[in-house]
Structures are given as C-alpha cells and as structure tokens.
C-alpha cells in the first residue's frame, strides 16, 4: 500500500499517470455511464500511450471505450460496456468482435463482491449471483480460476459462488472535492468508487476543486475516501467532461453524441477524434476550449443548477 504521506499529493494529470500507471497495469475506473468518469486522467493515459492495460470496473463507459479505441487495452474485466441512450461502447464491441481484446464478464454485483473481498483483505467473497448463467461456463483465454462453487456449511444442499478478490494496480476516479492530503468527497451517486479505491494498490483522484483540510475536518462524515488510500490528487475543473459531476455540471449530451458517432464509424473518423481532442491537445484545458470553452461549460453548469 502507498505510504501514509500526509504532505501534499497534488500533481498534474501528466505526472500522476507517469508515476502510477505503468504499461501493463490493471486499471480500475470509477464513475458510471455519463456520470463522474475521470476523463482528464484518461486523456493523459492516451497521450502517454500506456500499453497492454487491463481495465476493470462495473459499468465500463466512455472512459474505457476511449482507451480501447486508442489501442491501449488488451483485456477488460467487468459487468458491461454500455452508454445506454447513447448506444453501445462501439470501440469495445469492435475490439472484442475483431479478436484484438479480451472481455471477462461478471455481473455488476459479482464485480462489487470482488472489490469488497479486496478492500477487506480476504481472498474471496461469496455471492448468489451468476448461478445458472453462462458466466460460470465460458471465460476469456487469459483468465485463471474465475470462480469456485462452494457448499453453504450452514444449509445442506445450498450452493454459493465465490469470486476472487480484485485489487487494481491503480484506481482512477473523479470526485467533486479533495484536499491535498487526498481526502475525497463524492457528491451524488457513489457507484462502485469507494470499494474500488479501497481495493486498489494506488489511487489517482481527480477533482473539481481542491479544498482545505480544515474544510474536510469540519464535515468529516462527508469524506467518502480518507487520504491513506490516495496516491495522487489532480485538480481539474470539468475533469469529467463530457460526463457530468453532480451539483457541478450536467453531462454534455452533444459531445457524447459526437464521440459516439466517431466511435461507431471507427477508422479515420475515430482517429480524427483522438487526434483533434486528445493527442493534439496540450492538456485538458486545451481540450475544454476545443469542445466549446467557457460558454459550453457555463451552459452545463446552468443545466445542473436548474436541477438542484
């Protein structure tokens, strides 16, 4: 586990990715669908071309799809690749159908169960999901022992599935507030983020704003993640764009739609997207300017405010 460094963990996304996302890493992604995905850090991974990644999580969304589309992912392990109303995660779908990437399927609860095993320091966790499904029949070529059936010692004939602990090398999440020690506050739904972070060996937290540790200490019940799990804090306003951050800004349906158009088309269209918005952007502020700048961001903020 990372050091209990109490000092500042503030750094740029570029530094955080250099330090904590090696080639071949098992990367856990927080957020879900169009909410609170750590896009600024994902962009940086694309810019630094980290290779042979395995991506894990429950719902794997545009954050995963972008890494897959950039050719950086050899394997996914999770519950679903899906953008709901906005369609499939097209790069994910294509990569699997083309045989260039593996997917290992679990249900969302089975993934959560695996994260709970890891956060609790136990080797496996029982679940009553998966029984009777083909997730217990088929598995990816590179997967070892995917599960084990066990008898319930307290009830003859009752069977449970046990699934192994899942401990990412690095978890990457986006939150609303963090201090420079790494204490983090999530607003709105939590999805699987808290378990993911506690399960991981390192965590990069990007945040809308850095607040003082005094502010954290004044409302300590609201701290979702205490600092000892966090290795890097990246301050990046609108850092989840085009996904949203509850109480801060709505998701950008226009840009998600634009991404999906390119992802569905693939080939030249998708390469253009990556080049225009990520590879040829110096940093995430540069990207934000390209996707509509302050005017666009203010409209997303305004949308959110009408919903509070």
């Amino acid at each position, binding site marked *: 586990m990372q050091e209990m460094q109490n000092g500042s963990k503030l750094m740029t996304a570029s530094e955080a990715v250099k330090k904590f996302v090696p080639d071949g890493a098992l990367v856990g992604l927080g957020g*879900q*669908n*169009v*909410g*609170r995905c750590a896009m600024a850090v994902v962009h940086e991974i694309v810019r630094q071309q980290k290779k042979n990644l395995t991506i894990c999580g*429950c*719902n794997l969304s545009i954050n995963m799809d972008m890494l897959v589309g950039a050719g950086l992912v050899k394997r996914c392990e*999770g*519950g*679903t*690749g*899906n*953008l*709901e*109303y*906005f369609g*499939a*995660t097209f790069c*994910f779908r294509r990569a*699997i*159908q083309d*045989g260039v990437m593996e*997917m290992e*399927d*679990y*249900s*969302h*609860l*089975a993934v*959560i*169960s695996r994260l709970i095993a890891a956060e609790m320091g136990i080797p496996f966790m029982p*679940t*009553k*999901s*998966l*029984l*009777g*499904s*083909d*997730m217990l029949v*088929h598995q*990816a*070529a590179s997967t070892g022992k995917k599960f084990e059936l066990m008898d319930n010692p307290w009830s003859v004939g*009752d*069977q449970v599935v046990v699934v192994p602990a899942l401990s990412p090398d690095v978890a990457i999440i986006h939150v609303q507030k963090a201090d420079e020690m790494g204490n983090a506050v999530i*607003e*709105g*739904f*939590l*999805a*699987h*983020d808290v*378990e993911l972070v506690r399960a991981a060996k390192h965590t990069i937290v990007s945040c809308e704003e850095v607040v003082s540790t005094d502010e954290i200490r004044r409302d300590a019940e609201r701290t979702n993640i205490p600092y000892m799990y966090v290795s890097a804090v990246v301050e990046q306003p609108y850092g989840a764009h085009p*996904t*949203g951050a*509850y109480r801060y800004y*709505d*998701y950008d*349906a226009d840009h998600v739609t634009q991404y999906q158009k390119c992802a569905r088309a693939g080939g030249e269209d998708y390469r253009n997207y990556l080049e225009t918005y990520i590879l040829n952007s110096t940093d995430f502020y540069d990207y934000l300017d390209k996707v509509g700048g302050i005017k666009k961001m203010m409209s997303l903020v305004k949308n959110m405010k009408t*919903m509070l």
Partner: protein
Amino acid sequence: MMDFSLEELTVIEGSRYIADYQSVFAGTGLPLLTTLLAQKTHAPHLCFVCETGPISPIVLPTPLSVSDPRLQHRAVRLGSLKEVLGCMLQRGIMDVGFVGGAEIDQYGNINSTVIGNYRRPKVRFPGSGGANDILSHAKRILIITKHEKQRFPEKCHYITSPGYISGADERERIGLTSKRPPITIITRLGIMEINPATGRFRISKLMPGSSVDKILAETGFRPEVPDYIEEVAPPTEFELRVLREEVDPHKLYMKKV
C-alpha cells in the same frame, strides 16, 4: 375511445404490474417511464431505486442514463452499487426488477452478452450489468421489449441472466435467492408470463389488434396457449395524460418502442 399508440399501451400495461409500496429496480428508458407512470397513478409510495445508488428520487424529465442527475434529484439517499445490488437486491428485498436483452428464450433466460463463440463472438452485446443480479434476486421480473422472432429463440446462445433455466424447479435447485419469480414480457403484440408449473412462457393477454397467431408468427419459441386469453385493458384518460404530460413530456422514449 381515445387515440393511443401501442407503444404507450405497453408502458401503461407494464405499470399495472407494479403495486403501491413496492421497491422497483429500473434502468432508464421504458422501464423508468413505466415505473414513474405507476408512481404517478396508482402507486404513489413505490420506492424506485437505481443501481448507481439513488434511492426514491423525485425524478426530473427525462433521464438518459442511470448516472443522470435527473435520477438523483431529491433522493432520500444517494448510495452505491453495493447498497442497491447487495443490500437490497441480493438481500432479497427488491419486489420488482426490469430487464431487457437481445434474446429471451422460452424459459425466460436472457442473453445480453454474445452471439457466437464467447472468445470471438459474431456479435458482442453490452454484457450483464445488473441484469444477472436482477434475474437472480428480484421477486418479480418485468420485460418490455420489441416483439421480433429472433429476439425470442427456443434457447439463448448465451445465458447472461437466468430465468427458469430449463424447467420449473431449476432455480430452486441451483440455489437462487428468488425461487419462482413471476416473469412477464410486455410487447406490442401481447403479454407472456412464465407458467410456474412448467417454467415456460404462456400467452396471458393480447394487445388490441393482436392475435395468438400473430404472436406465434413473431415468436421463435412456441409459447403455451391457454384456452382463454383476455385483452389488455385500454388506457384510461388519466394514465394517458400522466404518461404524455408528466412522464415523457419531451417524447424522448415513446417513439422508440
């Protein structure tokens, strides 16, 4: 008689399967509309939960995602996947769960993963998400879907989420939490429900203008056909008005069935 579309009636009929005070697990799209319609008509106290963590939100029109801020609005709790999937669903206190899928077979098994070889599929779908968990643990399952022959095969290419697997007693035998949940499919042609004696679907209601023959023609497996099949009751004026004006005022979903 009022004008209404069959799309509208599927949602309205679906809402009738939800009782007041029930806990309902639904994603976005038609399941959410159905849940909200029930809440705004006959089930004001239902507890809607969404897998990302919101519990009993006062939903704003119209969420496009389970991560949508419109689904988080004024929730009594903004929780986690663990709380919803573990501490409610697997815990056995979820009354109703909605699912969908690329294939739904005669036993209510659902495929939302692959067609073809698992490791090199012909078609890759999104995967389970929470669907396997819902089918495994919810006390009642609702499915609102298109009625197409290839969507209703005799046997799914891959079972993502278990219905009755291969017979009435199979769920109990393999140890699933909810032993014999009613599973109901609602389409523009009619309603099919699992016969608890066989674990297979039987036609239970016809939509207006539909017939047993039409259903059989559009269903890949052969559902059981009872002697008497009632017709789905038409929408009340109240149901239609609430659906159109409050539940999907921007018509984001109703055109899509």
